[in-house]
């Protein structure tokens, strides 16, 4: 244990995980955000027409939606990364708030592979790795389908190689 604030002296920090998710995930996220934004705009437009909500709220919402569609998915794509090693899985998700999760191979309980209806159109899949903790599932969205399949196989094989009930 060292003095607090020693960050500046030694500068130890976690690096980003090695692999990006598929670039197609960015398109999928932009599309999702655009659909959400359009729905919100239509709802507000109806409100403006029917209940005489002031029209400048539309301009405000439009600005928010533009940022939501143009900036957030790109930011999310830059943050979303993953990596596996012999002994651990390491994921990074989020955009404004960045969350990094590390789980040892020996503690992995299940490995889930999922293709949502939208993700399937883009040839993408998500992999979720659960441990015994209620707070500890590691989830990687927007993986290329082939990469995701290989990842699931690798993880399952490596997790099986370790004894114990993973709690």
């Amino acid at each position, binding site marked *: 244990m060292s003095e607090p604030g020693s960050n500046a002296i030694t500068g130890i920090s976690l690096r980003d995980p090695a692999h990006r998710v598929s670039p197609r995930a960015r398109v999928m996220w932009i599309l999702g955000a655009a659909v959400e934004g359009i729905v919100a705009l239509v709802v507000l437009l109806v409100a403006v027409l029917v209940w005489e909500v002031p029209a400048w709220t539309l301009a405000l919402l439009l600005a928010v939606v533009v940022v939501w569609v143009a900036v957030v998915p790109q930011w999310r794509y830059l943050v979303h990364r993953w990596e596996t090693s012999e002994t651990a899985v390491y994921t990074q998700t989020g955009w404004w708030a960045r969350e*990094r999760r590390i*789980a040892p191979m020996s503690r992995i309980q299940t490995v889930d592979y999922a293709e949502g209806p939208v993700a399937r159109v883009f040839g993408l899949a998500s992999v979720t790795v659960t441990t015994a903790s209620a707070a500890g599932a590691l989830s990687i969205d927007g993986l290329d389908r082939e990469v995701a399949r290989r990842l699931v196989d690798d993880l399952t094989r490596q997790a099986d190689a370790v004894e114990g009930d993973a709690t």
Partner: protein
Amino acid sequence: MSPVSVVAAAHDWQRLDRRMLLVHPIRELVRFLPALVAIAVAGTASGGAPWQALGVVVPVALGVLRYLTTRYRIAAGRIELRRGLLSRRVTSTPLDRVRTVDLTSSVVQRVLGLTTLRIGTGLAANDEGDALDLDGLPVDRARALRADLLHAAPVASEDGWAGDVPAAPHDAVPLVAFDPRWLRFAPFTGTGLIVVAAVVGGASQLLESFDVWDDVRSDDLPVPSGLGIALGVVAGVVVLVALSVLGYLVTNGGFRLTREAGAWHVRRGLLTTRETSIDEERLAGVAIGEPLALRLTGGRHLQAIVTGVNRSQSGSSTLVPPSDADVAPAAARAILGQRGPDGPVDAPLTGHGPAATRRRWTRALLPAVVLLLLAVAAVATGAPWWLLVPCVVILAASAALAADRAAGLGHALVDGHLVARSGSLARRREMLDVDHVIGWTLRDTWFQRRAGLIALAATTAGGRGSVGLLDVPEADAVRLADEALPGLVSQFATVPRHGLNTL
């Protein structure tokens, strides 16, 4: 009857204790009480006796049926419970998945010397109300069964039930036993405060609906209404305190914490007694709770972080109820096996540094300052001046909260335990065995990244799912995580200027 033969006999399907023939009908009668009252009223109106008899016979018959259709057995490494007449349901649990065993006795059961044995497995099935309850066993037999179940959990033994069964835990010398002086903490506990708030809210609504406040202000009262209101407030507070003390007594009366055969046993409850047993293997750590109200009055409480016991079963995790400040730490020392004066319970904690302190202050003060500025603007445009008073009070309270929250932050890694303390109104000092750490979560927002801080959480299979350190300098977080589980985090770390050996 020796306990070994008790459990050996359980290999065949068998019924619960015969005395449940008394308990079940009483329970059904209570459940049918509203209907019974209605039937009785209708019966006296029409004058027909058979109807009234039916109202009693049906619940009693239901109770008897419930007894006759419920059976359990222990066979092939599983404990199985079969119940139901029309839709039959079998609940089954592998013995090596048993994590906690609770014995709960209602008043009726206590009179008859019975208890309900509940098996906690920590599996998702528990959330669906599928807990395995053996409702109605003789107390001796339930204790013997419990000893065997907990014994079977860590090592699933092939030959079954061999070995000596320890004495019932209530015979052992308790580590902590109930002290009536603890009752003074009752009004300051979380549940005490909730009771107070609920009663105040309910009473004021009731008074409002009857327009009592108008009456109080009228001249009917023999004393000046100011004094009357003051007396009313005092009387109300006395009632609320009495209620919270009563609640504490009913929940925690007769409390004792004992250790027996590799498990910790907590027994409490004045009317309905409850014995919780936590297998030592499953005890991931303990948390000393020191919420503000308790801290100011010199109290502490202790909870267990148990593998397989989640938040919804938090009642099962109490190790020591709110009590004098030295009781919970003493129990924690014994439970963690701390010998020296600088174990996890007492070790000084490393603070989180000036950046974390600054963050506590900005987070607490920002809303209060905004509120104050709004109030100032409102007053400037003609609002009454006293609007500022509550805003200033809120600002002062926020400052006090920020100072307390900053002072509370701390972490350490001592004797294989990760120690983390945070919070003010609900401060906890959590001590987690690193062997039970099953992963790390590091979270930082853009603001935190700029301040060089990060929230580190050690995930575990028990308790809230994780033990968290709020706003640690990132280098400290990485170093701590790497010291706790060597090699796991360092493979993903970068050290720009020095070698990895500085870790």
